[in-house]
């Protein structure tokens, strides 16, 4: 329920009879116990890791499928938003409320400059 992070399985090995592996979390590597997923994973797979244990293998097909659905929903909306954003930047207002603003709703966060 908490702090399960997805990472890529890069090595698998046994350690004193326990299946272990090395998992790469986008640049951080840690040894992880694979006892609960050993039958279904191979190196290159993604796993969800919680307190040093892989608790599931990421179903990449499922992830791809549902993500595509989401993207399709948002593509339909995007054209609308682009119009909206253009209109709002002309009038100097933004659509999201920022509690730090005063009642008049004027934005006090300029676009950052000097972005690399």
């Amino acid at each position, binding site marked *: 329920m908490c702090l399960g992070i997805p990472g890529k399985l890069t090595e698998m090995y046994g350690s004193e009879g326990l299946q272990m592996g090395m998992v790469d*979390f*986008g*640049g*951080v590597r840690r040894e992880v116990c694979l006892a609960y997923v050993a039958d279904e994973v191979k190196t290159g797979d993604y796993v969800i890791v919680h307190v040093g244990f892989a608790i599931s293998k990421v179903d990449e097909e499922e992830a791809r499928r549902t993500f595509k659905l989401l993207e399709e929903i948002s593509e339909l909306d995007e054209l609308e938003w682009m119009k909206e954003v253009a209109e709002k930047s002309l009038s100097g207002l933004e*659509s999201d409320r*920022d509690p*730090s603003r005063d009642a008049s709703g004027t934005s*006090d*966060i300029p676009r950052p400059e*000097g972005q690399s």
Partner: protein
Amino acid sequence: MTKAGGAPVQEPADGVSRIASAGLTCPVPAGEADRVLLGHGSGGKLSAALLRERFLPRFGNDVLEELGDAAVVNVPGDEIAVSTDSFVVSPLEFPGGNIGHLAVHGTVNDLAMMGAEPLYLTAGFILEEGLPLALLDRVLDAMKESAREAGVIVVTGDTKVVERGKADGMFINTTGIGQLDPDFRPGPTRARDGDAVIVSGPIGRHGVAIMAAREDLRFEVEVRSDTACLVPLVQALSAACGPAIRSLRDPTRGGVASALNEIAASSGVGIRLEEGSLPVPGPVRAACEMLGLDPLYVANEGILVAIVAQEEAMSALQALHSHPIGASAVRIGTVTAERPGLVLLRTGLGPSRVVDMLPGDQLPRIC
């Protein structure tokens, strides 16, 4: 040898040979020549040898070699800048450096944040009995190199030795003296509505490198401490923008968040940050995810936060970009008169959240 790594502390071998000599009360065990002994801190022959063989060759200068009870130095001007810091990092050595680098950079940088030119350092050492001398040498080498780079000399120092288990290997205190520039006096109270908030480089590297080097969390990451001398960056800023630099801060313990909270409180202003602008390197972000930490609170040792008058923000960024350690300087937010004392971060989704001071050390969040 230290407790920090969780390894058991080794007891010295028995059968210690004792030198019978009037006045010498400390036994000199044979075969212990490679470790710090209690005698090294007692002011007698061992102490003198340590000073002569290890400290003087590295820090040697006219003032130090006087070996007076106090150093006499010359500092022009009516006011001088003085800063002191103690360094207790564990482990002593970590990717990117060691406690010696921190001890010099930390104090030199604090002087530089006031716009002062660092001139002199003192160095006080509390060494733990049993510390390998080779490690001490590496630390002293780091200090020598860092001092040379920063253009400071170590003018006086002190060494004490405490019993095994009482000092986590070593503690270092450095006090720095710097010369102030009457025309360049950044300070925490000078931030104003509309000023730009700039950070000179990627955030979170030092803290993550330290945590990775601690055995109990057991993760590997290719992140090195960013420990560095910030004097050249400050000089570049001063030359380019001078008085437009309102405040400078090196965000060490407590990270960028704490530094900004302090400035906001001291200046009586609010600060608004843009989450998308924060320069967090991939591996730092990944390590923070894993441990449930927020990069804004992770310690840095080689970046500065600058509050710059809006009209000079571009110029300040260019000045930083011209130096290797400032190459990825970026604007991360703006000072505002609204809600003084509050630092807010606008997330990618739109709403803002408070970035507060932390009560204590960030603990790895697990569940």
